[in-house]
């Protein structure tokens, strides 16, 4: 025999009405959710706070008004007018844009050839590409530096771009390859019967259909190139040629640390990424879920 009516449910030993239980569950869920978001965003919030007023954490907790009264954009002004920040930003933008654009062009056809064309050694090439991802960046940095030095590519933005493309391509090709393998082959065959060459079929049919996957790959390439530190540090020695990550690291002095300047620079470096991710996030979701289910 049931001892409770349909309108009540037992929660942690307490008899509650169904609507109360639903509300409590929603409150619990949202508390957990917002709590998690707060933990993740706390460093970002602290970055903004310090860039406006470099007070210590304890001081802010003790007297928040002291922080409010001391807010200024001084650190941003110093970053823009008294350092090479804008040059580094420009260099980062050039290298990232060039690396992303070239990666997309090369990996569209590279992934297509590995995903679609039947040739001897296709699997070996694909496996070899994946193997290159197993080495840590720092491991290949020294040999790469020696090769680039001999080729005269050291301390140049195009040298850095080439290095980035070399590192981004294998993973990008693997990402796109999976997508191409799931596209019906008959589409490009129809295009070829309809008068296109194979390259024409790829450009007119395959590329438009793989826009979400290509966008995901582009975002991946962009994030890698924009944030990369080790290569830029090793291959570039001139401050006028360096990019944001190694540039900002030069502000960390041995005896002094200008936290507000550093945080202002970090925000300036993060902003383009936030803007791009905000607009393209739907493609990342679509792109990553691609091929998960048969459509």
């Amino acid at each position, binding site marked *: 025999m049931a001892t409770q009516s349909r309108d009540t449910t037992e929660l942690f030993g307490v008899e509650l009405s169904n609507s109360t239980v639903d509300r409590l569950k929603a409150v619990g869920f949202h508390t957990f959710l917002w709590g998690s978001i707060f933990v993740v965003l706390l460093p970002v919030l602290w970055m903004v706070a310090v860039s406006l007023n470099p007070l210590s954490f304890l001081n802010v907790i003790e007297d928040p008004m002291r922080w409010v009264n001391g807010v200024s954009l001084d650190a941003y002004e110093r970053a823009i007018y008294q350092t090479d920040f804008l040059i580094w930003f420009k260099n980062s933008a050039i290298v990232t844009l060039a690396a992303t654009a070239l990666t997309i062009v090369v990996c569209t056809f590279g992934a297509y050839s590995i995903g679609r064309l*039947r040739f001897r050694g296709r699997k070996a090439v694909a496996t070899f590409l994946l193997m290159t991802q197993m080495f840590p960046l720092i491991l290949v940095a020294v040999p790469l530096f020696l090769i680039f030095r001999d080729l005269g590519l050291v301390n140049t933005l195009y040298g850095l771009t080439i290095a980035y493309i070399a590192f981004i391509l294998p993973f990008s090709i693997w990402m796109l390859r999976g997508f191409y393998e799931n596209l*019906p082959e*008959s*589409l490009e*065959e*129809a*295009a*070829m*019967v*309809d*008068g*296109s*060459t194979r390259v*024409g079929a790829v450009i*007119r*049919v395959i590329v*438009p*259909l793989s826009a979400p996957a290509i966008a995901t790959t582009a975002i991946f390439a962009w994030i890698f190139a924009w944030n990369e530190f080790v290569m830029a540090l090793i291959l570039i020695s001139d401050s006028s040629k360096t990019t944001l990550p190694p540039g900002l690291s030069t502000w960390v002095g041995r005896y002094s640390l200008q936290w507000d300047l550093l945080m202002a620079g970090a925000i300036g470096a993060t902003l383009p990424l936030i803007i791009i991710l905000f607009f393209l996030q739907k493609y990342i979701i679509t792109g990553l879920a691609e091929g998960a289910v048969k459509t």
Partner: protein
Amino acid sequence: MARILFDEVTKIYGDDTLAVDDFDLEIEDGEFLTLVGPSGSGKSTLLRMVAGLEDITEGSIHIGDTVVNNLPPRSRDIAMVFQSYALYPHLTVRENMAFGLKRSTDLSDPEINDRVEEAAAMMGIEPHLDQKPKHLSGGQRQRVATGRAIVRDPGVFLFDEPLSNLDAKLRKHMRTELQRIQNQLDTTTIYVTHDQEEAMTMSDRIAILNYGELQQVGSPRTVYNEPENVFVAQFIGSPSMNMFVSTLDTDANRFVGDIDVSIDPERASAIAQNATSDELLLGIRPEHVTVHLEAVEESVPASVDIIEPLGSNDLLYFDLEDGTGVEDVIADDVSIGEDEEKDEEEYKVFIQPDSVPIEYEDSGELVYLTFDTEHMHVFDPRTGENIDVETATRTTVDAQTETAGDDD
């Protein structure tokens, strides 16, 4: 328009799979030829070789007077309708149909548009011209795919099982429509299907394939009435032909075994001459068997398994008392088709509705069967070949009579 010639065409895939073996066939200008066969028989491979989507291992394919072996698909003057329709999802119906014209002709945009609208009118898809394929039903997509092919006015149409994704009713309707269009345009057409009914109803000629080998080519009537081997006999016709195992007694001019039937002495001696085995396969279609409720002269007793009502007539499945399995006598290298392998001793006969009481079903009650030996085929189980010269002679006479009738 163009004639197509297959000259000793062979296709071997990379892993040494023989898909097509030494295939010879000439398709006349304006002819509608259907390639039919079970899965893996090589029919789609042949079509794809004509389209240029598959390399030819040996031999050559001619379209018109040109050997096309090394020509890319775009240079072959062909249009193809795929099983999946292969409509470009990011383009509208209009753009889908104009795609080929833009790539393969130097027509101006207004001229292309006129051609697209003309083809759309022919296919009845004008209201959908500005829609994307995802908004169309299966039947509409099929029409767009066909429209995309006809708008280019190619020398050859290639259809790769274009109706297999449609429901039965729509499939029958589209069958008629495709036939109408082919008649109207008079374009050489190769149509691939595994559905023998589709092949029978649409084609000028049918080519039956099995394991990459051409089994027989001829008009639908020819392949139905004069199957050259046991595979064709089984594959063409629905329900398939009954196969009985019997031995020829040349002294008595009788077949004795699963069924006992008499034939005339001339035919008996001709069969005996051609046969390489004592036990032979007698092939009789369900419409050439008569069911009696009482024993009559030369009748064979059988028990009723199931009676299936089909509407205008019923299909009666029967069992013979001592039926020998076809599998027991047929040589290992002779293919009899999947149906027969699965339902080794499933015998069928068409009857008038209610002519056999439903109580007979699975009751052990006997019916008595007589067989129309005029329409009986005799196959050698060692070679699978039709060794009944009588059939060939008779059907030639039939064909002549038919032609004479047409002239009247």
